[in-house]
């Protein structure tokens, strides 16, 4: 693992604006502006956002169970990394990610989630990623306190704490290379795609991000892959990047590499 790369990825943040649409007779409060780490989740930011909206003493109190979130006309996934949501909008550099907080009836299947539900989703991802990498050899030997430490590092934005635990999760067990690479490919208004893919092909050469994306796009019947940008953490990922490098250095804290595929501007 490369300390500098991991630290840069960790420290990257995006500007987010939350606007309340509550149809309140008193009108809605001014938007809430914040910088969010790319690795974080809207589910973790929402309590702070609602506390801001609920400051007016005469106003109605808005609780998490009655809201849903929207980003440019589509439901925003509260459980997806903020960086993924941001990149899916295909914005110009440093543009604000606009999230509307709505109290109208939600679109089918929208579930507002609290911190505990978010933690469960995060932990299931960690376990799945480790199953892909080491058949769960690492997570099976992790103490309860280490899981807690990892989650705490995410909720408290503590890189040092994260760094101690993430090194363990990215370690190849007994010199054995990762079986598979935890990779999720995200496209707008679609479920994320995941395929079972190794770091090397049969002849032993390294499989690249470009190879992996081509395979995923083929499955999704995308007409011409060259019309799309392959991005992660806000940058265009060189297609020749080996998957194993991405897995170790560009993974989000849930241990998955999240690649966002968007139309070229």
């Amino acid at each position: 693992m490369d300390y500098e790369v991991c630290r840069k990825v960790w420290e990257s943040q995006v500007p987010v604006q939350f606007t309340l649409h509550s149809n309140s007779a008193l009108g809605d409060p001014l938007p809430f502006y914040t910088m969010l780490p790319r690795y974080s989740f809207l589910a973790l930011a929402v309590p702070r956002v609602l506390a801001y909206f609920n400051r007016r003493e005469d106003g109605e109190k808005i609780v998490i169970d009655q809201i849903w979130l929207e980003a440019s006309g589509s439901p925003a996934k509260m459980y997806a990394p903020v960086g993924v949501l941001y990149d899916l909008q295909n914005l110009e550099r440093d543009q604000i990610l606009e999230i509307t907080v709505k109290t109208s009836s939600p679109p089918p299947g929208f579930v507002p989630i609290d911190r505990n539900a978010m933690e469960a989703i995060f932990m299931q991802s960690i376990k799945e990623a480790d199953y892909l990498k080491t058949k769960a050899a690492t997570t099976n030997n992790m103490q309860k306190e280490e899981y807690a430490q990892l989650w705490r590092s995410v909720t408290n934005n503590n890189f040092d704490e994260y760094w101690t635990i993430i090194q363990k999760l990215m370690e190849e067990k007994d010199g054995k290379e990762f079986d598979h690479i935890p990779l999720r490919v995200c496209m707008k208004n679609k479920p994320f795609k995941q395929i079972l893919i190794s770091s090397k092909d049969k002849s032993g050469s390294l499989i690249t991000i470009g190879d992996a994306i081509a395979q995923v796009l083929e499955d999704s019947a995308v007409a011409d892959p060259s019309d799309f940008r392959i991005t992660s953490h806000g940058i265009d990922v060189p297609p020749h990047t080996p998957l194993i490098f991405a897995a170790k250095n560009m993974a989000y804290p849930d241990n998955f590499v999240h690649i966002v595929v968007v139309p070229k501007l």
Partner: protein
Amino acid sequence: MLTEQRFHEEIKSFVERMVSEKLNWSLCENGKYAKESHLEQLPDGRIISAEAHVIYNSTYQVPVIWFNYFENNGTPLQFSTVVRDVLQISEEESDASIRTRISHLEHPFLGVLYFNIHPCNTSGLMKELKTDDTYLLPWFSVYGPQIRLRVPTF
């Protein structure tokens, strides 16, 4: 462990078997997964609709049950209502403990949150069962009842 190909072969006969037992199962997305739906009544009298899906998980190479419960207006029920009122899991087990085996995750075909019964122990457990003729039926006889789904006699 179950290969994806065998899953696709078996899921058809699985659904046929369920239908022959008068259970409301069908295939979705050209046979990629199977679906069941029915109505249930909560202790407070509310009628809710239940949906369960059997989907192949390529990471663990096992089938997984995905499920949700909806109110009349289509709103999914909250975690606490699901585990305490519908699944009737005792208060002695904490939410945190339940969430190590049943929790939300993005549905692979619908792209919204559904509950799933975690697949991390499935393959170990299935080693204890006889799966020469069929994998899905013995698997379902273990996992289906966990969310109170009816299992055919076999």
